[in-house]
């Protein structure tokens, strides 16, 4: 028996990278998964097919997490299909890196809208259902740089630090209804987001990781499964770092 048998999970940005790994890992543990994506329909459908092959249920739902109507529709579809939402993983995220002095207002806004407002909208949209259920898990994918800061990512680090604050407030507000809210802070994980970085940046990053290697999406996904499972029933408002020791 998996740790999440019969549970329903909604994973935002599950078409690629870390979100994809999270969707697959949750399904491995028995969850049925709503695979949200923004533009990558085919990739999302591939994830759905992989989950169906495991004998679990899954659907792909397009939604822009920064848009409230779109988010409402996502959660409505999830409920229509599965009847409950037990786990929400706020994973969708983008980067628009630039030095503070060069950063355009649009770059700032876009990242805050998707990475911070998106978490707020999705969280708000599931709390009604989770309050009724008197149980729920919300897991926000933050980032180690939301804790440490990072040159060239003013927008992104502000959003991720914001996600950590939001995580703690939601954890306090919803604890009495048995809704547990935690964050996972990945370090440098090999995905399309990080593949795009220049070699010299990668080399210098590697030198800052005590464990001496980059992480894999599956390693983040395992931490999410833990926080979604009964094993974590006494943990809320925490930030679990999966970063090879970058921030201690």
């Amino acid at each position, binding site marked *: 028996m998996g740790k999440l048998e019969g549970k329903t999970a909604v994973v935002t940005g599950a078409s690629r990278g870390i979100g994809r790994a999270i969707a697959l890992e949750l399904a491995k543990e028995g969850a049925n998964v709503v695979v949200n994506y923004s533009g990558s329909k085919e990739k999302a459908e591939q994830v759905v097919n992989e989950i169906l092959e495991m004998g679990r249920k899954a659907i792909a739902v397009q939604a822009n997490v920064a848009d409230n109507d779109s988010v409402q529709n996502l959660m409505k579809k999830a409920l229509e299909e599965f009847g409950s939402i037990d786990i929400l993983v706020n994973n969708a995220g983008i980067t628009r890196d630039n030095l503070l002095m060069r950063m355009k207002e649009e770059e700032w806004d876009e990242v805050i809208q998707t990475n911070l407002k998106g978490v707020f909208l999705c969280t708000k949209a599931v709390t009604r259902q989770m*309050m009724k259920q008197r149980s729920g898990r919300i897991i926000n994918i933050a980032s180690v740089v939301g804790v440490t800061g990072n040159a060239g990512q003013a927008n992104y680090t502000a959003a991720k630090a914001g996600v950590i604050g939001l995580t703690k407030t939601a954890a306090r*507000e919803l604890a009495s*209804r048995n809704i547990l809210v935690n964050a996972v802070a990945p370090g440098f994980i090999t995905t399309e987001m990080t593949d795009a970085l220049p070699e010299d940046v990668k080399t210098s990053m590697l030198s800052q990781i005590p464990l001496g290697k980059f992480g894999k999406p599956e390693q983040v996904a395992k931490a999410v499964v833990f926080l979604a499972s009964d094993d974590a029933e006494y943990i809320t408002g925490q930030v679990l770092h999966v970063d090879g020791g970058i921030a201690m």
Partner: protein
Amino acid sequence: MSTVLERVTKVIVDRLGVDESEVTENASFREDLGADSLDVVELVMELEDEFDMEISDEDAEKIVTVGDAVKYIESKLN
């Protein structure tokens, strides 16, 4: 057919675990019935389900007493 007051009372008794006799029109959810702010949000959600209507956040803020809830719902039903 139960009256609006009866249906509202039932929702309150179920949710807040108070005695039916405490649920008078003048009773304030927070002052008299021991509801915290999250309880009030939940009550509003359940009233929405019970009466199949949407209560906007702005309107919900104005609902302080049992009577407020009954009056609001009655006005929306008519």
